[in-house]
């Protein structure tokens, strides 16, 4: 394949994001400069650059600044994508972020980050640009086309926002693929399977279930269901709430008043949750601001009772998906588990019960890393679209729309025009007429959802059919065609049939950015100039080298430096001197290798610094500052989950 023809697959996740591509006949994840496959979906304004236009950092480096300058960091932005002001306001109860003050109803909300403001697609664009750069670094050539995954249960506005983010990042989004379907592609690659597959995807913030039929290389989705607000975050919140309550009643300290401490406590809750997947028991041991210790043993049994209500919420969507597909649990041949939360033994037991697996001598598929499988599947779909590989030549994905599409009718009821679980692309043609003599406009309100009243469904768009020739009421015959494309996004066209005129439609999406707005938000347009590419790579490599050199220099005054062993210090010094030597040269690879070497030599130092920062937050040292900036509630999801599991 020609280098410029490469299409990458991207998993733009709530907690972590990944980029992958097909290497020969196998999808592989492309690591970042720090060698990690997972890029935390965290974006920060570099506090170092307060005078000039601030630099944006993404991933692990952004995450490290979270405890010290939380007002300059944003995470879990996926939860805000494609949402209106009201929805974001209710969502923000669970986040420590602030909305910009001047956002008006009907506008896409902007988040205040330090002294700057960003829409959710812009934040996502920074994450995408980082992944794009990681891929370009890896290939040594520009990457301009991508497949991006979205939760199967994402609605039209959330999908469009994701596509907008891609465009802002300088990526042509060739296709949006549903996450569970992508996982099925990754699993279906190396086997010539036929049969019915259920993909159970419990991630950090969303739950999806999809049922697919595999035949002759065709992956045909039969039904999908889910919950866009159900995931590992909910489990963390339960553990956190218990710890906060007990600390309050046993030690008389209300940690809820101390946002930094809550964040640190959440990290402990996440650690406890993760260790409970392997151990029979986990414990909290935390030093409190007054010097007391909060110690708590959590047996797995207690944990499982605690989370049962959360896990049970996945059962309803699974049953509905089976009903919609017209099959019984016994007819499912294989179950694939996706998402970090499926590592929890109680989740596996629930899945086993739902699909009667053990009783039939079957086990769910967990062979592929549940954190990576979606990105791997996206790479497979990217290869299908590139159309140049024998491996995927015979493969084709036929997905469905997760929600019914309808039109608001008289009395506020919904007339469904495309049923949920219809294979996409799907279309519906509707006819409209006028109610008053000489009427030249007809207003149409399009909604998405299963409820009977339009007010209970999700409003997609309102539009006017204009330029209808004046006629007697009821005489014009306007044909409107609604089409859901292969990305799950709606397109509309209309024509007046009696006069043969093409009616003008002005479509006003209920949520979302206009084309012009997206255009104005495109990051660094020079990014795509190929001529400067080699130069840019060199400049970026040098900037990265400078950045790590200056961080190492500053770290010398950090108390953590004193905790290093002698040989660790000399290893850091050696790597530092080497990098300082090669960085002004033109050898791109030498600079990169030296940068990676220095980064590796400072891993323990970074950990020590992180621990110190977390501890100081618990002790309240940075609370005064953090407390003013944040108005965090207990249930804020937190990106401090480890980027990789051991």
């Amino acid at each position, binding site marked *: 394949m020609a280098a410029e023809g490469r299409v990458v697959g991207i998993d733009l996740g709530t907690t972590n994001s990944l980029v992958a591509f097909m290497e020969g006949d196998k999808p592989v994840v492309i690591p970042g400069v720090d060698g990690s496959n997972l890029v935390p979906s965290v974006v920060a304004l570099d506090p170092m650059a307060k005078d000039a236009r601030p630099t944006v950092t993404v991933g692990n480096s952004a995450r490290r600044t979270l405890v010290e300058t939380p007002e300059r960091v944003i995470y879990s932005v996926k939860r805000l994508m494609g949402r209106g002001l009201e929805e974001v306001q209710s969502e923000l109860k669970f986040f420590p972020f602030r909305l910009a003050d001047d956002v008006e109803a009907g506008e896409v909300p902007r988040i205040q980050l330090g002294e700057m403001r960003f829409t959710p697609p812009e934040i996502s664009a920074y994450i995408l640009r980082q992944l794009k750069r990681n891929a370009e670094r890896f290939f040594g050539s520009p990457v301009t086309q991508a497949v991006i995954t979205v939760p199967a249960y994402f609605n039209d506005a959330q999908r*469009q926002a994701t596509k907008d983010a891609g465009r802002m990042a300088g990526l042509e989004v*060739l*296709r949006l693929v549903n996450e569970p379907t992508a996982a099925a592609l990754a699993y279906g690659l190396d086997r010539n399977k036929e049969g019915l597959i259920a993909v159970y995807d419990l991630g950090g913030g969303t739950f999806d279930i999809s049922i697919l039929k595999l*035949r*002759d290389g*065709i992956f045909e989705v039969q039904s999908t269901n889910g919950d866009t607000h159900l995931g590992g975050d909910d489990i963390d919140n339960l553990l956190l709430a218990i710890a906060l309550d007990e600390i309050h009643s046993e030690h008389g300290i209300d940690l809820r008043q101390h946002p930094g401490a809550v964040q640190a406590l959440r990290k402990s809750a996440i650690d406890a949750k993760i260790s409970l997947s392997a151990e029979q028991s986990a414990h909290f041991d935390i030093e409190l601001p007054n010097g007391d210790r909060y110690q708590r043993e959590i047996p797995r049994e207690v944990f499982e009772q605690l989370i049962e209500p959360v896990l049970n919420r996945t059962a309803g969507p699974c049953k509905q998906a089976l009903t919609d597909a017209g099959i019984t649990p016994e007819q499912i041949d294989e179950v694939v588990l996706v998402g970090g939360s499926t590592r929890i033994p109680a989740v596996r037991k629930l899945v086993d019960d739902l699909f009667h697996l053990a009783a039939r001598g079957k086990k769910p598929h967990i062979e592929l890393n549940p954190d990576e499988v979606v990105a791997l599947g996206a790479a497979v*779909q990217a290869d*299908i*679209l*590139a*159309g140049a590989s024998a491996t995927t030549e015979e493969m*084709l*994905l*036929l997905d469905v729309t997760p929600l019914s599409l309808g*039109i608001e*009718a*008289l*009395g506020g*009821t919904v*007339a*469904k*025009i*495309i*049923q949920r679980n*219809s*294979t*996409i*692309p*799907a*279309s*519906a*043609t*509707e*006819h*409209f*007429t006028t*109610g008053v003599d000489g009427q030249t406009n007809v207003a149409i309100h*399009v909604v998405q959802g299963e409820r009977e009243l339009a007010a209970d469904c999700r409003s*997609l*768009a309102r*539009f006017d059919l204009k330029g209808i020739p004046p006629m007697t009421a*009821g005489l014009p*015959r306007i044909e409107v*065609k609604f*089409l*859901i*494309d*292969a990305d799950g*996004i*709606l*397109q*509309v*066209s209309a024509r007046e049939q009696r006069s043969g005129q093409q009616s003008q*439609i002005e*479509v006003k*999406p209920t949520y*979302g*950015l206009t084309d012009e707005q997206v255009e104005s938000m495109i990051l660094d347009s020079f990014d795509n100039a190929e001529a400067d590419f080699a130069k840019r790579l060199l400049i970026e490599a040098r900037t990265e080298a400078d950045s790590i050199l200056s961080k190492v220099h500053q770290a010398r005054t950090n108390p953590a430096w004193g905790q290093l062993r002698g040989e660790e210090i000399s290893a850091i010094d050696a790597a530092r001197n080497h990098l300082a030597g090669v960085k002004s040269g033109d050898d791109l690879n030498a600079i990169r290798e030296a940068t990676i070497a220095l980064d590796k030599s400072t891993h323990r130092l970074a950990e020590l610094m992180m621990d110190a920062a977390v501890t100081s937050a618990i002790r309240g040292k940075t609370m005064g500052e953090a407390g003013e900036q944040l108005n965090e509630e207990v249930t804020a999801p937190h990106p401090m989950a480890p980027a990789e599991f051991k």
Partner: protein
Amino acid sequence: MLKVIDSAIPVDCWSCAVAHNESTLFCPHCSKIQPPPGGDYFSVFSLVPKLDLDLGMLEHQFHKLSRKLHPDRFARASASEKDWSLADTALLNDAYRTLRDPIRRTEYLLKLHGAEIGEEHAGKDRGGAPEDRSSSLGSRKDPSRVPADLLEEAFDLNMQLEEMRMSKKMGDSDPELQSSLEQANKKFNDMLNEVDRDLREQWQVWDNGEEAARLEAQKKMVSLLDRRRYINNLVRDVTDTLSN
């Protein structure tokens, strides 16, 4: 976000300029993809309109055409080819969705032949529906078409359902009512099966009969579909009430 799409229909192939039959997905001359053809759903699959279809064959055809038409195959094609692939695949999917389901297929074919049918499956096959949505939507559940022999039973059932809902609301359990409703459910399900058997019989008449026999079968099917829709709603109400 929404965007306006356009679909004009050329008669000559856009690529090789050779004129072709309008109802074709690919140019017979140069094999290039064409804008959506004007024919019915059966012609998408090159089928003669009939009711008793070989579903295995239909699925096979669906997969075969999907492989050729799907937008995934045109990710890097010209803008018009992309648009046509999208429109053609939407047509293919709509056609498959309608034809593979025995009831939707029957309704669709009968409508093609001018029959007026109720609105069990809201969908794009609403060709005969009134255009003014304000009136058409208000009268979508047409209560006047209760099959005469079911009037009394349906009345009794609705009374029982109401009673059941009330007692569930109060948190009471009424085993006698429960079992009576379960029996009713079974009975109506049996009726559904009976209607389906009768429908299939009429399929054969329609598929193989002469014009007069066809017309007769058509009338019978319209009333069978009405009856089916009515019973189906009753079964749904009972199932909902029992499971809530």
